[in-house]
């Protein structure tokens, strides 16, 4: 049934229809309405789940980890400082090969204090061994949670996933969302039943000390699992499309890229604004396209290489910054393209930090600049967009 709801409620409904069994969460702006709604569902008996009101995000993830080892389907949600406080336990979740699903309401890191949209928190977790999915709409948030459980719980994957919704722009925006029928979700997503779990009568030690001559083999297996997740993500999305009629473009969601000269790589909600700008510029005969980075992990390396063979220029918009280097999406993109012969011009644009609005004007400014830079063959950067005091400023 289609109803108007916020991104946060879409997350809560996603966990509900996925029948999460253990939810451990700690409140943080702007994630709170997710856990409030889930606590309501549990209290009302609408979910057969245990809600653990933990005293920190570190404990939220730690409780999920232990519950997951004990065989429960687990869910949590957090944001910014909460996510970075979890950092240690995120590694624990992936190292222990647990299919935990979490929503991160992506928000800027302090100082300066900011509660608004920014990808720094999520990007800072890219080495934790989690799959990371950036969402463009509330519907995608809900649908990706359902898909994520099916991907994570695959015996070939067994890794956790982070569903990322931009603070306020999705979390607090109400828009129509279709909540799938429970029985349809049930047949799409079977019960979680791990082969081995923590249980009495099973005297095993979980997570033992491993010597240097054994450690690398475990990491190698995790690497293989993340690689096989690529295929699993595609097949689960295909099944989802056949069941529910919606799909989101795999790891790299391309829009009007077929004959594009210049494309913009962007993740999260700004992709929607970019679609509007692409249409508008195309109406004026300018061949631009959008390549929405849906997954930061696994990173769409092959998809980007294929795209690079067709375009002259790639602009990469980062809503975060790695000081002393560049935007993470940019360095990841360049790293993916380096091994191949045909490498288009790539330029990095930094915009939308701390909730700064990414307007159609900014997106069009980036496209125009990238076309110009490609024509001139000069792609210095990174270019910080819309910063007071800079000579060039698009708004």
């Amino acid at each position, binding site marked *: 049934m289609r109803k108007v709801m916020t991104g946060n409620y879409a997350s809560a409904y996603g966990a509900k229809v996925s029948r999460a069994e253990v939810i451990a969460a700690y409140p943080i702006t702007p994630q709170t309405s997710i856990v409030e709604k889930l606590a309501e569902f549990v209290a009302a008996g609408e979910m057969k789940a245990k809600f653990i009101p933990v005293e920190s995000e570190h404990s939220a993830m730690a409780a999920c980890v232990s519950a997951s080892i004990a065989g429960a389907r687990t869910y949590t949600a957090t944001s910014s400082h909460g996510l970075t406080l979890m950092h240690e336990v995120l590694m624990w979740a992936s190292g222990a090969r647990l299919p935990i699903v979490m929503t991160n309401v992506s928000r800027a890191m302090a100082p300066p204090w900011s509660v608004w949209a920014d990808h720094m928190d999520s990007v800072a977790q890219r080495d934790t061994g989690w799959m990371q999915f950036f969402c463009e709409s509330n519907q995608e948030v809900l649908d990706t949670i359902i898909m994520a459980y099916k991907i994570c719980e695959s015996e070939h994957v067994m890794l956790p996933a982070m569903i990322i919704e931009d603070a306020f722009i999705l979390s607090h925006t109400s828009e129509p969302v279709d909540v799938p029928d429970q029985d349809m979700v049930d047949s799409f997503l079977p019960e979680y039943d791990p082969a081995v779990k923590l*249980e009495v009568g099973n005297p095993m*030690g979980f997570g033992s000390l491993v010597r240097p001559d054994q450690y690398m083999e475990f990491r190698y297996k995790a690497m293989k699992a993340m690689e096989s997740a690529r295929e699993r993500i595609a097949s689960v999305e295909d099944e989802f499309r056949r069941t529910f009629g919606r799909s989101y473009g795999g790891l790299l969601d391309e829009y009007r890229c077929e004959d594009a000269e210049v494309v913009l790589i962007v993740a999260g909600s700004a992709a929607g604004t970019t679609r509007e700008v692409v249409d508008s510029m195309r109406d004026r005969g300018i061949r631009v396209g959008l390549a929405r980075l849906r997954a930061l992990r696994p990173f769409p390396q092959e998809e980007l290489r294929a795209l690079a063979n067709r375009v002259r220029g790639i602009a990469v918009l980062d809503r975060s910054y790695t000081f002393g280097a560049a935007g993470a999406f940019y360095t990841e993109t360049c790293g993916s393209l380096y091994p191949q012969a045909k490498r288009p011009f790539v330029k990095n644009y930094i915009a939308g930090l701390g909730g700064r609005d990414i307007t159609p004007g900014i997106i069009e400014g980036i496209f125009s600049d990238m076309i110009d830079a490609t024509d001139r063959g000069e792609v210095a950067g990174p270019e910080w967009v819309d910063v007071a005091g800079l000579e060039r400023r698009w708004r």
Partner: protein
Amino acid sequence: MSPTTIPEEEYAHPGSTGCPGCGANLVMRYLLKGLGDRTIITIPACCWAVMPGYWPSHCLKIPMVYCAFEATGASLSGIRAALDVRGEEDVTVVGFAGDGGTVDIGLQALSGAAERQTDAIYVMYDNEAYMNTGIQRSGSTPWGAWTTTTPVKDAKGFKREPKKDIMGIMAAHDVPYAATVSVGHPEDFVKKIRKAKEVKGFRFIHAYSPCPPGWRMNPMKTIEVAKLAVDSRIFPLYEIVDGDLTITRKGKGVPVSDYLSIQGRFSHLSDEDVADIQRGVDQAYAELEKRAVPKK
């Protein structure tokens, strides 16, 4: 049947990698004798994180899981929730952490689990320093002790701060059951564990756990020093049931110097220092007796 005073059934395999004379090994042995095999245990970073040996070695006959150093309380809540969802409410869930993992880095998660009244038993085995990392001071290291981070350069170089009162902290959480136990008194230990097992809600066990290398002590002295700790009243044995405190074993009241003198970690203390410790112990024990409910 042998006339043993504690259950003969063993839930630990030999071959654990604890140091010779390790008190923490005994704490686990007695604990499981009291609980039996419908028990799941979660262990953070501590000596016990390495004691089962390298993968694939496991030294217990029950399931065990590791958790992050500061996360024992949260791990308890997670396991409990997972078991409750599948209706295994009779299984005892145990957190088993060292003193640093409890009174320092794990205090927040411990407090959270206690406040939430997670139905579980938390056991802190107290060897009074970070022993797994090589004898660094913790909040549970007593006044006067040498550690590698309280080096004795001169007469005053030892730890100058008193031991954190974890039992007081847990009592302030109004947990339904809290008790001190010692490896020197296995019968009292097992009796309290059996009692704790029958209580619903969050239960806390403070287990005295001598560490021969960390205490600069001959490993054969582990039991002797544990008994001296009780007899000198430096580590009194008591329990708090729904707020009512009962001393379960009155020590003989031997001088604390008997206890201190067999441990190298106190060897630098002057007579005045020892007298100070004696005064502190006498005072604390008098306070404890005042709090104790008179026997009916």
